């Protein structure tokens, strides 16, 4: 890369973003042209329309990512996965299995004052809902105490959307409202800051047909945009990615003695689906978690954990994929890391109280978590990575604050919200 001499180099680097490109590998690879302000590619790879990989490729020379470079990335990162996928399809062809009938599906979108993003998501759903294999698909928009009518208007612009208003602010209030008003026997939750992949419903259908007894499903979360430094940074640190292999989770796991306490590995709350009857029998989501500020996290960890503890498995399915709009600014991102620490510890404090059987594991998880974060901090300090260090500190402090009674404070707050809205 050649630098313009009258602009200091760091100014240019800061302005850079990555172009997200969707590539079909079964067709010949073509070079990818980048715009002026882009200095990398976020490559979404498919093979015969199935998602097989995502890679971030930095700094192609002269604004073009050549076909050769693309091929070498594909050789390294996608070829093994293609071979696995081929074998899987071949095995299925040789030994076809009886496919259980799909359930009625309710898609619940919980949103608050984000009409624009909601429209974007509804548009992406509109493309696929009519073509899906599910016998019946309903879409519920749960308006979580929005201040104006923009959300209602956005929902009304699409065909066949059920609009539910939940006056009590808090994501898990909204999720429980959706749970009660839904009619499908399976309920799929989406956050309003995502867009669904074109195979989203097919992925969910496939996971269900292979595992009809699963209590829940989680899916892949890819970045929607990589335009800002914060988004790039977040994705480079792993983002929400949980890989391109399907994974099964049960009440115990041989390779992790702390499982299922570390339920973060299952996926993320912005893209998850459950057997609705099971959730109702578990009492729905914990409304004291995921309340928005000051405790905007932990609800997904808690519900994954309780589903697994109920004895039903959960399935992570990479083709059940969404694109998530990551936090745009560094400050928002730091806030998110704080939230992760906070939510994790609030969840652990709660589970320790409600699930006496696994108390030793909760305790060990707290130890492990702090040990792991301190290790990360030490690594960042050693390598002089100031930003990693500051984010690490934010997460650690969040964890300490969460351990120090945040769950109880949140319960008090939630109780007063309930009383105000009676």
């Amino acid at each position, binding site marked *: 890369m050649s630098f313009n001499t009258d602009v200091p180099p760091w100014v240019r680097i800061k302005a850079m973003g990555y172009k997200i490109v969707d590539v079909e*590998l079964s067709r010949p690879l073509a070079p990818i042209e980048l715009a002026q302000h882009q200095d990398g590619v976020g490559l979404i790879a498919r093979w015969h329309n199935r998602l097989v990989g995502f890679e971030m490729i930095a700094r192609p020379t002269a604004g073009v990512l050549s076909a050769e470079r693309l091929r070498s990335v594909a050789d390294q990162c996608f070829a093994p996965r293609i071979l696995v996928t*081929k074998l899987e399809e071949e095995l299925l062809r040789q*030994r076809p299995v009886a496919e259980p009938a799909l359930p009625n599906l309710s898609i619940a979108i919980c949103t608050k004052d984000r009409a624009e993003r909601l429209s974007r998501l509804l548009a992406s759903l509109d493309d696929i809902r009519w073509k899906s294999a599910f016998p019946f698909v309903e879409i519920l928009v749960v308006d979580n105490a929005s201040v104006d009518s923009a959300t209602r208007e956005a929902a009304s612009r699409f065909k066949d959307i059920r609009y539910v208003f939940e006056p009590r602010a808090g994501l898990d209030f909204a999720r429980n409202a959706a749970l009660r008003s839904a009619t499908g026997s399976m309920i799929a939750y989406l956050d309003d800051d995502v867009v669904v992949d074109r195979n989203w419903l097919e992925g969910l259908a496939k996971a269900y047909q292979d595992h009809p007894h699963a209590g829940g499903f989680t899916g892949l979360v890819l970045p929607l945009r990589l335009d800002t430094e914060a988004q790039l940074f977040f994705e480079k640190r792993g983002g929400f990615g949980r890989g391109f292999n399907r994974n099964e989770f049960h*009440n*115990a796991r041989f390779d992790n003695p702390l499982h299922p306490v570390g339920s973060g590995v299952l996926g993320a709350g912005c893209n998850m689906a459950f057997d609705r009857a099971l959730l109702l029998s578990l009492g729905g989501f914990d409304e004291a978690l995921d309340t928005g500020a000051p405790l905007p996290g932990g609800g997904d960890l808690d519900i994954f954990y309780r589903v697994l503890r109920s004895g039903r498995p959960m399935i992570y399915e990479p083709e059940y994929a969404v694109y998530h709009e990551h936090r745009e600014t560094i400050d928002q991102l730091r806030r998110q890391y704080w939230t992760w620490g906070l939510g994790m510890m609030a969840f652990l404090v709660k589970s320790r109280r409600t699930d006496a059987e696994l108390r030793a594991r909760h305790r060990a998880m707290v130890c*492990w978590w702090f040990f792991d974060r301190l290790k990360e901090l030490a690594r960042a300090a050693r390598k002089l990575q100031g930003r990693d260090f500051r984010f690490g500190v934010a997460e650690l402090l969040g964890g300490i604050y969460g351990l120090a009674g945040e769950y109880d404070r949140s319960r008090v707050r939630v109780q007063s919200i309930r009383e105000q809205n009676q």
Partner: protein
Amino acid sequence: MNDDAFSVRQIDLASADAHVGSGDIPSLSIFWWKDLPLGMQASLPDELPYTEARLRQLAAEFSAAQLAARSVALGAPLRATYEGWPKSVLSLAAALGVQNPLGCLDELATASSASAQHISVVICTRDRGPALAQCLQSIARQSSAPGEVIVVDNSRNATARPLCVRFPNVRYVHEPRPGLSVARSAGIRASRHDIIAFTDDDVEVHHGWTAEIARAFAQWDVEALTGLVLPARLDTIAQRRFQFDMGGFGATFVPLIFDQRFFEETRPSGAHVWKIGAGANMAFRRSAFERVGSFDERLGAGAAGCSEDSELWYRILATGGACLYEPRAVVFHHHRRDWPGFRRQIKAYMKGHVAALVVQYDNFGDRGNIDRIWKQLPAYFVRTFIKALFEGSPGRTRILAAEVQGWLAGLQFLLRLGWRKQRTSNWLRKKTDDPQGSARTVPVSKSISKGPDRRPLLP
């Protein structure tokens, strides 16, 4: 959950009812595609039985690795990397071009029908009658019978003789001088065929073992071969700790070439030859012993502890040879059942490892061996200790203590070498007036042939 015995199951993924047998007790499942071992997985009752979809996914993942490692069109053969693992060289074009992958897999899974008449099987034993009987029975069931079976009895009073008489095709050799290396060398002297395969008395071999060894040596121009060592039983806590915490005898299910590049890459930290395989399942061409000598009698059970096998691979690699790891040659090893025995074994492993590093340094003068004793191993102890503290596996620290004891016990070999070095270098200096004269600069060929323990073995 660590208290329950694990059952060891064999699951053939090529058969349609594979999912029926996976059960609901803690188990280590070993997956096969007909006669080709694919991989293994330990599971708790909560994760069992495997669903049909899960087995399909496992079959696809395992067989993709087999195809990439064994099909020449996809980049086989694979070389071992620094970690002792393969690095796939699969290209996008090759992956897209694969036609009929299951047909290819079926072809790869065909059992060997090669004749094993040119193979001598050598089993060294010492006072383990019942285990030896099982071992000999498994060898009697080979699909291709080996040219000869030699039992070297390393006990003082020839206790294995009555047992061996019961097996008509077994030649019995008594070697009263204690030491596994001594016994193996006696076995080599007694053997008559071109390929010499070793296994231990606590092992049961797969029925295709000798046939697969014959096929591998016919296909590859290598001097040494190792194979897959699977656990036979996981009943006791000692057996499970050995398999799961200490990694057993390895879990690689794809063939690998260990060549000069592997040797050079790992040389700075003492050439990681122990990643090549295990003495419970190894074979050599006779020419290898003629070229680099036999097992070092200072090493091995009965002497320093172990690593006599890896030290021999070190010599082969250091002098330009190559070793092949071929997991199609399968044996099942009975790990120690009792905890004190397991601890002693771990201690002996570490002691033998340090001794082997000293011997390798003595032979070839690679500083990497000494660096490993003083840097890598202590660092490994500290890392393991911290990890065990925070991840809360109390058993691991007890194992670690045995390892540290073994390491300390192994340091004596370093001291002894130091004393000997001093003497010889003084002696050299007087004799040649060469101020640089020391064993470190002795060329490879000389160092191989020197020393009382590496006399030519063949009559």
